[in-house]
């Protein structure tokens, strides 16, 4: 158990909240992000050895997800100083404090080996991220925060009921406390089937709400549309990954109990529905931040679809988690820059970004190409392999529908993106002082480079880790 990964960000959050100097606050943010990643890499050396009966511990699955979050957080933390310097009007204390608390709670979640503790961590990440959505303190951000809290809380309440159902299933089978995932998986054969199935449905709907699977995604476009790009990046790659991990832990118990078939049908259904729903709303979407939100709904769909197909596709769904988080950070941060430069995020007003903010414009375009599965970026590898596995392991219709939806989404999304990036600059534009600088673009270039490298080569230890994480999801304790 790497307790410092939890404690360090939380202490830093307290410090950032207490300190009144904005300069020191951002220093704390970036230093903590770097230390967290270094500490995590050091801790990952021992992911194979999880002591039995531990409530907290870093295993392959949790380690992989936390690694993704930690890298994403570092990208955001490197971008944050320049962003906060552009927003001296807003209180950076709550902002920095919330960001850092989120990192600490995500570390708790990744290491949690108990469904109750996992649930507590998810609940508290919602709390930590709500002030981030309300950052702009205007009517729209209030509306977005209200929807996020209300819909998110209902989802989390359902996940709690699902957790109780699974606890009852274990209780009926004579499994005693503590209900660690490892124990649940070992004694899964004794668990009561009806309760286990009902519990899985509830946790899928509950954590699915938090992930933003259709049709429980309705908070997502509002929340992502109204927050700063940096928060959007963290929500789309970080908070959703947390909820996905919580769902995967329950899925692992269900598949260990031999109920994977039942669960897979649900996951494939929700996956395809999310992709189709997102596609409908992406066509002719005028607001490019909402466009990214629907793209996030789509990619959450791809994640659960990959898990539902199983086998090699499950492994590439986990790979896709990383690919999506990296590319989404590029898209949200560059969209944030373009938004700042035009003081608008609506299509008729924002055109020709490539001339006004050349670097952000190019990054937005490349990010779009990467996320829609253009080789050689990382999302191509995962999307290709998920489709390949679906087509070759007896899911021909699912595979075909998956490919058709990907194609349609590429076309739908490209229309808006091309206009934003290449269109002729509109005459009635507002003049803003924003210009692309090294500090507001370099973190994105790093993230995109990483997504490119991942598409070509993944280090051996990470490949092994991914393999064992996928095995855990498949129900091997």
């Amino acid at each position: 158990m790497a307790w410092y990964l939890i404690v360090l960000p939380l202490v830093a959050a307290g410090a950032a909240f207490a300190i009144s100097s904005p300069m020191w606050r951002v220093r704390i943010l970036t230093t903590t992000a770097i230390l967290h990643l270094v500490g995590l890499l050091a801790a990952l050396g021992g992911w194979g050895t999880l002591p039995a009966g531990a409530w907290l511990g870093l295993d392959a699955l949790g380690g992989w997800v936390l690694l993704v979050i930690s890298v994403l957080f570092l990208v955001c933390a490197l971008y944050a100083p320049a962003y906060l310097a552009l927003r001296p009007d807003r209180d950076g204390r709550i902002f920095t404090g919330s960001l850092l608390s989120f990192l600490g709670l995500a570390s708790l979640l990744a290491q949690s080996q108990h469904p109750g503790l996992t649930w507590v961590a998810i609940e508290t990440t919602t709390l930590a991220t709500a002030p981030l959505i309300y950052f702009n303190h205007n009517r729209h951000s209030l509306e977005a925060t209200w929807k996020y809290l209300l819909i998110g809380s209902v989802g989390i309440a359902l996940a709690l009921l699902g957790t109780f159902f699974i606890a009852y299933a274990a209780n009926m089978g004579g499994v005693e406390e503590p209900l660690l995932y490892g124990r649940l998986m070992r004694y899964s054969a004794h668990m009561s089937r009806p309760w286990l199935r009902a519990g899985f449905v509830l946790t899928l709907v509950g954590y699915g709400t938090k992930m933003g699977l259709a049709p429980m995604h309705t908070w997502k476009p509002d929340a992502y549309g109204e927050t700063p790009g940096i928060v959007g990046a963290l929500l789309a790659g970080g908070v959703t990954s947390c909820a996905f991990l919580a769902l995967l832990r329950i899925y692992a118990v269900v598949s260990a109990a031999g109920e994977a078939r039942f669960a897979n049908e649900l996951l494939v259904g929700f996956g395809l529905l999310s992709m189709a729903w997102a596609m409908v709303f992406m066509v002719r979407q005028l607001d490019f931040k909402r466009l990214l939100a629907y793209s996030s709904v789509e990619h959450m769909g791809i994640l659960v679809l990959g898990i539902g197909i199983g086998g090699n596709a499950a492994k590439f769904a986990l790979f896709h988690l990383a690919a999506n988080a990296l590319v989404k950070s590029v898209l949200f941060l560059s969209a944030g820059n373009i938004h700042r430069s035009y003081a608008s995020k609506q299509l008729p007003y924002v055109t020709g970004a490539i001339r006004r903010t050349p670097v952000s414009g190019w990054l937005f375009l490349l990010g779009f190409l990467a996320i829609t599965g253009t080789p050689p970026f990382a999302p191509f590898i995962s999307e290709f392999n998920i489709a390949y596995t679906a087509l070759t392991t007896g899911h021909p219709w699912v595979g075909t529908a998956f490919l058709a939806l990907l194609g349609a989404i590429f076309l739908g999304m490209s229309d808006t993106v091309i206009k934003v990036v290449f269109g002729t600059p509109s005459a009635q534009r507002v003049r803003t002082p924003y210009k692309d600088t090294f500090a507001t673009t370099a973190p994105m270039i790093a993230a995109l480079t990483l997504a490119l490298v991942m598409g070509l080569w993944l280090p051996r230890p990470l490949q092994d880790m991914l393999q064992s994480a996928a095995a855990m999801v498949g129900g091997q304790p």
Partner: protein
Amino acid sequence: MFHDILITLTVLTNFTLVATSRIHKSIQVAAFQGVLLGLLPMTLGLGFHVHILLMAAAAVIVKGWFIPFLLRRALAKVHIHREVHPYIGYTVSLMLCALGTGMSIVLAHNLPLKPGGPFALFVPAALATLFTGFLLLVSRRKAITQVVGYLVLENGIFLFGLMLIEDMPILVETGVLLDLFVGIFVMGIVINHISVAFDSMDTRQLAELKD
């Protein structure tokens, strides 16, 4: 015996909740439901264990007094008394609530119970209360009534949690208490912001964001 009466009353309060248009009354009924749920653990013959007392006290004090107090205070600020033009009318809401209660009984029939124990009515009542909470959440316009809906949804989960309180007290307590705190307390803060920013609590005004 006594617990069956309490559960029946809980289900009856569900119907009152969906049928009332006065916000004051719905807060009152939700508080009453909280007190009923607080009394329930005492009547189950589980003894007066510290965990049981904690759950009971949490329900009576937080659900029965504190949250209604917060909601009334928020209500006093904005001078609204009625839920005007809900998305789903009161008659239809009542029928839907009856339908949901019936479906809960059917659903609960498919979930086997541990033999023995006083929990025969718990699962259908928990599901019915959960459904009522949902119905209030989606059918009402005022932020306060939506919070009442969330409170009722929580009550359903609380009811189910009581079935596990003896065997898994810590899981149930943390879950229920934290959920309660987060849901209501944080929403209370946001409601406050809404009433300041919009001078009302009508969530119709929170409908500018759409496609």
